[in-house]
């Protein structure tokens, strides 16, 4: 599929990986819908795209809401008349181990709260489902060629302290296989699905963290640095243009390994 002239929708498009994807696609001539919770971020990204001579709309929305999802899909169609690429970047973390023990008694002092579990599942899994589902509906009903891109994570392999996040991201990684299997059953041939599983990426969330802790993380990355959001955007661009890539999850980690050198 050609990027120039296509229409892309990116949730979480107001910062981090989503912002990089939006700008990368806009630079290559795609019309883009920037969907985000933070209006300030949307305004900044849309202004940047205006300055580069691109075409964009900004829609403030909550991806966990079915009504909001319907609204940002319709807004994209109202503005650009079609939809070809949907990238579900919106995501959050609420880390914590499932149980915390009292050091003196050895008994459980605290449990991972349902609020922390539910918030992550709602945004990272249900939000992705709603975006991918409604984008696919628009693509199929419109008869437009399309690519659906759930964003998983290398932590789908299982990360301590992230039972909620890893559970959502492993489910996101499974989506392409199931969705494309169903599309084959239903005779839907012009819409593909490819998930991307980034490793540690230079987003504000990571670059703002304790630099000593970050240094320790990078000791396990073969590349020796964080992945740039633009490198992830470049991979998504490649997936858009190469229609043989389908029904799979592609990792982009720089060679992230477990301590002592087994690739994660």
């Amino acid at each position, binding site marked *: 599929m050609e990027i120039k002239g296509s229409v892309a929708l990116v949730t979480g498009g107001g910062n981090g990986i989503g912002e990089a994807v939006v700008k990368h696609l806009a630079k290559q001539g795609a019309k883009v819908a920037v969907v985000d919770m933070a209006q300030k971020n949307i305004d900044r990204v849309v202004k940047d795209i205006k300055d580069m001579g691109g075409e*964009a709309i900004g829609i403030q929305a909550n991806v966990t809401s079915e009504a909001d999802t319907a609204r940002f899909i319709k807004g994209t169609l109202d503005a650009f008349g079609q939809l070809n690429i949907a990238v579900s970047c919106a995501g959050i973390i609420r880390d914590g181990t499932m149980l915390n023990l009292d050091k003196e008694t050895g008994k459980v002092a605290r449990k991972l709260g349902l609020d922390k579990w539910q918030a992550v599942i709602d945004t990272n899994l249900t939000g992705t489902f709603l975006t991918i589902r409604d984008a696919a509906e628009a693509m199929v009903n419109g008869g437009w060629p399309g690519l659906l891109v759930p964003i998983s994570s290398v932590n789908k392999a299982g990360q301590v302290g992230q039972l909620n996040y890893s559970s959502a991201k492993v489910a996101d990684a499974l989506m392409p296989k199931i969705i494309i299997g169903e599309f084959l059953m239903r005779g839907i041939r012009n819409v593909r699905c490819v998930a991307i599983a980034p490793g540690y990426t230079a987003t504000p969330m990571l670059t703002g963290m304790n630099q000593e802790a970050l240094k320790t993380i990078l000791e396990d990355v073969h590349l020796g640095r964080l992945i740039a959001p633009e490198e992830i955007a470049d991979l998504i661009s490649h997936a858009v243009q190469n229609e043989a890539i389908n029904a799979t999850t592609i990792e982009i980690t720089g060679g992230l390994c477990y301590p002592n050198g087994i690739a994660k």
Partner: protein
Amino acid sequence: MTTFIYNDLHFKLEARDGSWDLGIERSGTTAYAGVGLFPGASSAEAETKAKALARTIFPVGVKCVGPDVAHPNTIGDLKIVGPDVAHPNFIYWNKDSVSCPRER
């Protein structure tokens, strides 16, 4: 340039290189709801499409009222912040609202 007001938002539709930019006034500056829209559309067509787009992107909804942070109830050091009951949009359980009276 065309301007219109919808949902308390002030919109500004401007032509640019054969397409249209839809601006919104926000805190004295112009933000953009969309740029490079409706290529080749006439001024009238662009205005119709811009209004439809604004209706989709900025739906009219219920605005939350409160909390009334100026008048917290206190229990010791604990401050309990309730809704702003003095606000004209506050709806009581035991009193009919003007805009939404009980059906008889």
